């Protein structure tokens, strides 16, 4: 079984700060990590490999330093890694990114046919959840997003059954291989990398492909040129004009502060109190 897992190297958004004056992202000192959602997909790919044997190939589009993210995945147990990296990819939106990654998957598939492509559910920097569906459409693969469980893989009949989280329930879907899967968060727990694996990963020759290596000739489909969306403005969140009203616990009891707060809440939002009373009575 040959599985390709697409990942992205992202800045750890929990640690990102915005420059108060220029409204730009201050990246200094912010660690670059493997997009956390991608790891749920990687772990699922590794579990399939544990069960069926075969190979997990990592794929990433990004700057040269994204090699580190791929190395991390090698340390977890992925077999091979390809970084498609070219200045011409800069400025890509989700449509252009899905094009470059699709080219990468197709090139990898020339070496060995691919059974499943995994991507993360979404990234934590862009949060769009669009690249996975984009790759599936471009490759003509069946798309299984928000998968909460892989129920069964039948390699003989080339089929796969999964549970997919939908609004209000879970769909049980059966489709044919190859397909593209995005795993839901918290569906599994990423395994640990042991020391020999980390040493192996540190020395692993991550393959770096230019746009030509990935088989891309048409420059109009990648990077800024291949991106229909245009970022017209970037700005920080507007600070609230109204200041918070603090209730002092030092000079009054918890009970008084609570009663005072309740009065203030219901004075500010008169219908809330009647709503709550209605609920109480029904």
């Amino acid at each position, binding site marked *: 079984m040959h599985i390709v897992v697409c990942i992205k190297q992202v800045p750890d958004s929990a640690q990102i700060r915005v420059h108060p004056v220029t409204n730009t992202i201050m990246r200094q000192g912010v660690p670059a990590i493997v997009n956390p959602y991608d790891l749920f997909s990687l772990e699922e790919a590794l579990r399939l490999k544990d069960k069926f044997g075969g190979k997990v190939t990592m794929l990433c589009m990004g700057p040269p330093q994204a090699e580190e993210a791929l190395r991390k995945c090698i340390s977890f147990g992925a077999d091979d890694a390809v970084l498609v990296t070219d200045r011409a990819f800069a400025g890509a939106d989700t449509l252009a990114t899905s094009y470059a990654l699709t080219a990468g998957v197709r090139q990898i598939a020339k070496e060995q046919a691919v059974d499943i492509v995994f991507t993360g559910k979404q990234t934590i920097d862009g949060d*769009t959840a669009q690249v996975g569906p984009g790759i599936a459409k471009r490759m003509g693969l*069946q798309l299984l997003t928000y998968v909460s469980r892989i129920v069964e893989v039948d390699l003989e009949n080339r089929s796969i059954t999964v549970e997919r989280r939908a609004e209000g329930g879970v769909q049980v879907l059966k489709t044919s291989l190859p397909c593209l899967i995005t795993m839901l968060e918290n569906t599994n727990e990423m395994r640990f990398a042991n020391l020999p694996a980390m040493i192996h990963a540190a020395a692993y020759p991550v393959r770096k492909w230019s746009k030509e290596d990935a088989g891309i000739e048409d420059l109009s489909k990648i990077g800024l040129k291949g991106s229909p969306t245009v970022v017209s403005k970037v700005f920080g969140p507007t600070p609230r004009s109204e200041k918070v009203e603090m209730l002092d616990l030092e000079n009054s009891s918890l009970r008084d502060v609570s009663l005072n707060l309740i009065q203030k809440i219901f004075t500010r939002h008169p219908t809330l109190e009647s709503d709550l009373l209605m609920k109480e009575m029904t």
Partner: protein
Amino acid sequence: MSQAPTPAAAPAKRPAGRGGRNLELSDELKAYKGVWVFIEHDRGHVHSVSWELIGEARKLADTLGCPVSAILLGGPDEPLEKFAAEAFTFGADKAYIMKDPVLKGYRNEPFTKGMTDLVNKYQPEIFLLGATSMGRDLAGSVATTLLTGLTADCTELKIDPTSKALAATRPTFGGSLYCTIMTLAYRPQMATVRPRVMLMPRADASRTGEITYDTLGMIETQVVTKMLDFIADANSNKINLPYADVIVSGGKGLKNPENFKLVFELARVLGGEVGSTRPCVQAGWVEADRQVGQTGKTVRPKLYIAAGISGAIQHRVGCEAADVIVAINTDVNAPIFEFAHYGIVGNAMQVLPALTQAFAAHLALRSRQVA
């Protein structure tokens, strides 16, 4: 079915923008008119986000002077006409209905084909979908098939006065920044919006509209993915944060999962829901469905009580639309106090029980007075 002009086939005479790309709309794409909303429904029920989008679409259409259309795909026995009638009351002028056995229950392949065919045939200028598991799955596929721009999880939609293009604003970098995105040279301009980001429009029962029917042209044997089963969530453990009136949320300041019961107790007294932050969900203290924020749910309650939550920007984007925000935190410098209406500097483990008791007593007293 008519084929939309692909962006690649557009005339090359357009002026080049930054990076040599086209930013000018070709003449054939100028023919694209109208605002479309995908009406998401499942098992006889329309997702409220669709009505919220009709309300938003109405404003955009009024600015552009064009109609709003509701798009309904579903099975032959599903009440799509009833949903269309409801869409009219919320502000839609037209409805496009596609009924086919293979469209019963959402599956990516037939829905993408149906949607893509409709867009190519009727050429809408703007196409909005809910950022749900269905909407995001479908929007990404349709936009890629049509090779057009798609902006995810928008928090504001406007018409740019100069270009008349859709200016879609969305949080990025986990909510630290907002960016306004436009699709200038491609049509339709697509965007998804999360549930509860936009206000629910008021229904006007006198409004009606015109329905157009189309066929899918696909049979079951052509659809590769089969739905074997749908396991509906048990009502008892269904968490519906986006539509809760009162939410009591707990964060890492509660120190351990056991202390979360204090949050549940206050929520119970207020008949509300329990929310949380990403670190608590990651630590396994509460279910993922309780996460409020950029990577969780967007909420719009009347009252939001944040206990032991520092108020990181990722959390703020999910809850700042609440009418009243109360923050309880030991750290006076916690960012939550920058956007809360009322703040208590204190230990949530002590404040929560006091609040629970005071609310219970107050509500009991008032209901006796009312009765």
